[in-house]
């Protein structure tokens, strides 16, 4: 540790719920994406799960909305070091999609990909058991396009680059395959509580 002369920082909040190295962005919701925000209409949105599954399948907007609704209420954490408390997203649990396609026993990982071609890798265990969603509402409003609308993946227990915006699908694999940021030096898993920011952390 190297103390910075004259740096005191903001007042500390004990048990703030912040992972190490994060700060509370308050009402701000910074936008961080490397690409042009696509103009993707709900009618053109689809979500596919394939790869190592018994029955690959594609859902349209209406078909996905016919699945049981599920909401996430809690915190989110971005690797650029902001966190946001008490946010609410509405959509469908990823378990509802996976139950229908039936992952093969040898499936261990997934690549999430977007309608723009962005990719992020995830261990399958991080996507199941009520820990991941496909969401289309933020608060009670439609998810804004710059935040991934009409629909994005939500994996709130990992850094937010895993929660692929404009989600198009998941391909299940029997191995880990680095996605866009992981190929650009970021950690393969991205657990904020262990500060897994960069590859090698």
């Amino acid at each position: 540790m190297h103390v910075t002369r004259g740096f005191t920082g903001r007042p500390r909040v004990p048990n703030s719920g912040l992972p190490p190295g994060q700060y509370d962005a308050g009402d701000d919701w910074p936008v961080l994406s490397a690409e042009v925000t696509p103009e993707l209409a709900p009618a053109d949105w689809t979500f596919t799960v394939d790869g190592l599954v018994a029955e690959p399948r594609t859902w349209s907007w209406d078909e996905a909305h016919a699945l049981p609704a599920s909401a996430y209420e809690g915190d989110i954490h971005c690797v650029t070091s902001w966190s946001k408390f008490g946010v609410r997203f509405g959509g469908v649990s990823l378990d509802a999609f996976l139950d229908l396609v039936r992952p093969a026993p040898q499936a261990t990982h997934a690549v999430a990909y977007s309608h723009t071609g962005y990719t992020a890798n995830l261990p399958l265990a991080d996507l199941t058991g009520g820990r991941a969603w496909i969401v289309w509402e933020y608060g009670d409003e439609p998810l804004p396009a710059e935040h991934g609308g009409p629909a994005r993946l939500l994996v709130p227990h990992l850094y937010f680059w895993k929660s692929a915006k404009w989600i198009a699908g998941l391909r299940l694999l029997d191995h880990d395959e680095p996605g866009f940021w992981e190929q650009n030096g970021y950690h393969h898993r991205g657990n904020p509580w262990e500060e897994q920011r960069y590859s090698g952390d």
Partner: protein
Amino acid sequence: MTGTFTPPTRFAVPGRIAVDNDTATTWQRATLTEIRRETPRAATFRFAVPGWRGHVPGQHVMLRLTAEDGYTAQRHYSIASPPDDVGHIELTLDHVEGGEVSGWFHAVAEPGDQVEVRGPNSGFFAWTGDRPALLVGAGSGVVPLMSMVRHHRARSLSVPLRLLVSARGPEELIYASEYGSETTPVFTRSAPPGVPVGRLSAAQVAALVADAPDGGWEAYVCGSNGFAEHASRLLVEAGQPVDRIRIERFG
């Protein structure tokens, strides 16, 4: 199932520059050697980083400040200096009202102070100088683009390079004295006599996109999210392919 999975859609922003995992994960001591005022709100902080293994223009670092009780704050900052400035990096920081890290830099920092950096990080916004580049930035978003311009100049590269830089007024234009014929400044609030006032226009972007060299531009857009949305939309409308637009948003 083996083999690399490629999404069925166009890969928007392929990464090109491999990031060195050692440098990306090791905190290094950086000693402040010089502070240069750029504008009333922005200053450049020059650091000696003896073990710095170099960067590609466009990359950024993670910077960490530590208080006596162990509390830390870390933020991303783009590198402004060119890679040939060996053993040194320069960062240019806006003074954000109430900002924890930029506030320390603007109110407390003096030459001799030490901070910690790790990086460089992120290869996707990097530009090695190999392809024609159309750079579009606003405010402190010009910082990583300036590293590219300086690199272009330092190496006397002949590959075409253009910079569109937006500022509120001439007094807020960072690096004003360094721009040459490659640069078109855009002033949104006040401008020198004879220069129009207004935000970056479709016509300005279209003129540059239309003037693309053989093989087309790689476009690099950097600034606030609002600016990035506006500029990237104008680029797309002017015919720049979406998969050849890279965006760095400062949050």
